[in-house]
């Protein structure tokens, strides 16, 4: 019917293509993380071939799942997996709610279609635990062949957006796919292609054009920082102009209008240290904050020929102070997909605790410490850090205070969006990760009190609050952050993705928290009591499908400092909690590539927080194992789209888990007690453990 957008054609026209290509690109993520399900082109005929697919007609390829009996390494073939069928519903722009509903339905459909029988792992790949050398090499290749064919077949309809991306550029040292502006141009071209008199006169929308709009809306709303370049925004404005002439596009326009006329996003280091960012045409360097910053501040009124009506909007933009540089892009003006009452209320509840932003001075932190103390802090409201430290250590000869290291959040900074966020009613605050506050307020209250407080709380309640905290952190992880975590590291100068780092920091914190709480007690009996309590909480976490915190608990309980304490452990021997904990350990065991956990996750219903480590590992493996570029049958280099589809699958799974928050009531006292507890470093924990239960000298 219409012209097929052939990537090969484009590639042939690329002069500078021969350079070696890498895929650090920011842009890659559009197809794989967000757009790749939204096909622009209805009836693409392009046959997609890969290295492995001599025939792409394999539909019912059976994937055998090899699993190995834990005790003896016999290999058994478990069962077959039927092919995933993915119906890709069209997402049309109608209104906010409907769009949202559809998105969710779509997600659910996807999840449902992902439910595959026992024995295969979550992703439709098989679990390869190769304790046995004899079988693996061939099997792996075979299985992967099947897997890749599967994805080819099932994602046939999705190529068109990707095809747009399959144009490559190689620029300087940072070779990768596309700059944002180039992608935008391609999208515009695509839209242009379907312009005809029919459209204009009949007040109809061509489906392809609509999909271009969809992609655009999604892009603009989720990744506004890509549009910091004035030219990009100008293009959008022109596009909006074109659309606004058509009644059929009114919904699109109203959506876009709100999105486009915003303050340009502030580009943090995160954005420019990986991938290929847009840069001002005149500036040759990419890596200076200044250049991007100024570019976002200089609004192109001069460029807006014929768009004078928009000038008024743009001139409102003022220069922003430098300290906003690092603000987390995700919290900037991004409409919140997973908006729920719970989330809002947790935000508000936490706001009430007076957590100041990083930007505030240290004296501000001091002043707010009083309010940050849990209400049970028995009137201990000294602000003087040292004095409160001393006075609170009364009970312990084994002084904790040298070990108080609160490492949380060192590697990321979430804050400094007060000035921007204040404009939005529903902003995401740096709820849990403000290290300054954590440290100072932790220090300013009695060291023993939080743990006493926690000890007296109901296990269910503690588990619920842990879920709320964990989900809130998990929810902030955007597709791009995951990719940045995987790819950004290649460049050693790049900054770790803040949201992923925050989650990992929290994980490590919870582990240390668990350890510290147990070690805080001098008597083995008391330690055993706390240990038992944590084992019970772990069971609750499992019941709530909070695997991330569960994993952190297990890491905390299983650390050397705790495991070596025989006296403590003996007390709990043969207790139910101990037995149940053993089962949890087995569940989260890394053996057979977390096969037990993967199975459990597959059967878990939302709300659920998966253990992030497994996803990161999977992403890394796919990235590492598959080439970004491959040769097609003509010997031309093409993007190995399957790689990105595989990565996209995982990211979509993560997104799905972010959809539903926990419906629990916030108990701010418990959250504070957890969050503001000082923790011991590993070394100090071990020292303390040695003191508590000295090594028996033979």
């Amino acid at each position, binding site marked *: 019917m219409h012209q097929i957008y052939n990537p090969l054609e484009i590639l042939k026209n690329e002069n500078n293509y021969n350079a070696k290509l890498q895929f650090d690109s920011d842009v890659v993520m559009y197809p794989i993380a967000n757009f790749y399900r939204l096909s622009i082109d209805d009836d693409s005929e392009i046959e997609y071939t890969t290295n492995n697919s001599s025939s792409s007609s394999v539909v019912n390829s059976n994937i055998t799942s090899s699993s190995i009996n834990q005790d003896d390494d016999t290999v058994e073939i478990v069962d077959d997996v039927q092919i995933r069928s993915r119906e890709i519903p069209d997402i049309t722009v109608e209104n906010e709610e409907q769009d949202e509903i559809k998105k969710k339905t779509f997600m659910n459909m996807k999840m449902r279609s992902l439910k595959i029988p026992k024995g295969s792992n979550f992703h439709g790949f098989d679990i390869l635990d190769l304790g046995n050398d004899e079988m693996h090499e061939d099997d792996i*290749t075979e299985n992967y062949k099947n897997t890749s064919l599967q994805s080819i077949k099932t994602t046939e309809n999705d190529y068109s957006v990707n095809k747009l991306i399959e144009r490559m550029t190689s620029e300087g040292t940072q070779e990768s796919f596309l700059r944002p502006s180039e992608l935008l141009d391609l999208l515009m071209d695509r839209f242009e292609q379907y312009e005809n008199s029919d459209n204009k006169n009949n007040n109809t929308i061509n489906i392809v054009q609509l999909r271009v709009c969809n992609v655009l809306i999604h892009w603009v709303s989720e990744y506004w920082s890509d549009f910091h370049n004035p030219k990009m925004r100008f293009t959008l404005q022109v596009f909006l102009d074109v659309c606004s002439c058509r009644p059929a596009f009114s919904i699109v326009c109203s959506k876009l209008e709100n999105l486009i006329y915003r303050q340009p996003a502030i580009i943090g280091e995160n954005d420019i240290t990986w991938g290929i960012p847009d840069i001002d045409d005149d500036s040759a360097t990419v890596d200076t904050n200044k250049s991007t910053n100024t570019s976002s501040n200089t609004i192109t009124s001069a460029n807006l020929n014929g768009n004078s009506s928009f000038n008024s909007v743009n001139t409102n933009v003022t220069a922003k102070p430098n300290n906003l540089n690092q603000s987390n892009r995700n919290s900037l003006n991004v409409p919140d997909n997973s908006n729920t009452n719970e989330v809002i209320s947790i935000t508000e509840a936490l706001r009430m605790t007076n957590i100041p932003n990083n930007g505030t001075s240290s004296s501000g932190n001091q002043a707010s410490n009083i309010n940050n103390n849990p209400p049970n802090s028995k009137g201990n409201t000294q602000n003087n850090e040292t004095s409160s430290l001393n006075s609170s250590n009364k009970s312990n000869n084994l002084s904790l205070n040298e070990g108080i290291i609160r490492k949380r959040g060192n590697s990321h900074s979430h804050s400094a969006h007060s000035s921007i966020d204040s404009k939005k009613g529903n902003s995401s605050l740096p709820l849990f990760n403000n290290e300054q506050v954590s440290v100072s307020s932790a220090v300013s209250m009695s060291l023993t009190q939080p743990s006493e407080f926690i000890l007296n709380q109901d296990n269910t309640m503690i588990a619920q609050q842990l879920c709320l905290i964990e989900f809130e952190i998990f929810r902030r992880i955007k597709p791009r952050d995951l990719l940045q975590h995987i790819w950004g*590291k290649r460049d050693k100068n790049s900054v770790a993705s803040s949201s992923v780092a925050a989650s990992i920091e929290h994980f490590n914190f919870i*582990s240390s928290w668990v350890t510290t709480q147990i070690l805080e007690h001098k008597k083995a009996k008391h330690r055993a009591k706390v240990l038992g309590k944590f084992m019970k909480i772990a069971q609750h976490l499992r019941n709530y499908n909070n695997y991330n915190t569960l994993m952190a608990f297990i*890491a905390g309980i299983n650390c050397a400092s705790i495991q070596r304490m025989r006296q403590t452990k003996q007390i709990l021997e043969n207790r139910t909690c101990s037995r149940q904990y053993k089962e949890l350990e087995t569940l989260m065991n*890394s053996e057979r590539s977390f096969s037990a956990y993967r199975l459990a996750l597959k059967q878990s219903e939302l709300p659920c927080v998966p253990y992030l480590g497994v996803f990161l590992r999977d992403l890394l*493996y796919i990235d590492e194992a598959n080439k970004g570029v491959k040769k097609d049958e003509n010997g031309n280099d093409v993007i190995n789209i399957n*790689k990105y589809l595989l990565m996209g699958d995982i990211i979509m799974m993560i997104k799905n888990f972010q959809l539903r928050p926990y419906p629990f009531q916030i108990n701010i006292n418990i959250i504070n007690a957890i969050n503001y507890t000082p923790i011991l470093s*590993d070394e100090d924990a*071990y020292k303390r453990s040695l003191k508590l239960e000295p090594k028996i000298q033979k």
Partner: protein
Amino acid sequence: MGDNSQPMRKYKLVFLGEQSVGKTSLITRFMYDTFDHAYQATIGIDFLSKTMYLEDRTIRLQLWDTAGQERFRSLIPSYIRDSSVAVVVYDIANRNSFSNCSKWIDDVRAERGGNVIIVLVGNKTDLAERREVSTEEGEQKAKEFNTMFIETSAKAGYNVKPLFRRIAQALPGIETQQQQQNEYPSQLIDIKMGQNKQNEGCAC
């Protein structure tokens, strides 16, 4: 154990080091003798095992990769806990990854004491023009921490097999010390091996 006919000693090797230093590449290069795209997606590979046929005996190495979970520091000890060998990898073109090796080695020592073979591996020698850590520095650190040392390039396939061969050759020595706590029949070990002396300088 499915191999009663020819019993083999199994050893767990854990791969440690910062993100992106090439841990997974080393493993895959060793397993498949290619650098990439020999396989499609290695999801699900938790540990791979490979049989090494030495002159006088056969052993099996189980390779555990911590890739993707490097920053989950509280979890790392559980990976180290029952390993016979820790392969600590850094990127010769990334000084930071080299500096952090001390921390990884400390972790291993804390968990395993002297009861472990540690190999310091400087990977990515193919990036010679971007080298930030000299071979001498690597050797120096290995000496300081009493570990084995080798430079490799998973990409070019340089020194990968020698790495594993050296590990394999160093292994029996350590196992003889572990006999009492080892669940496998000890008479299977060939304790006549002599070459562990020069390779394995660890503090056992």
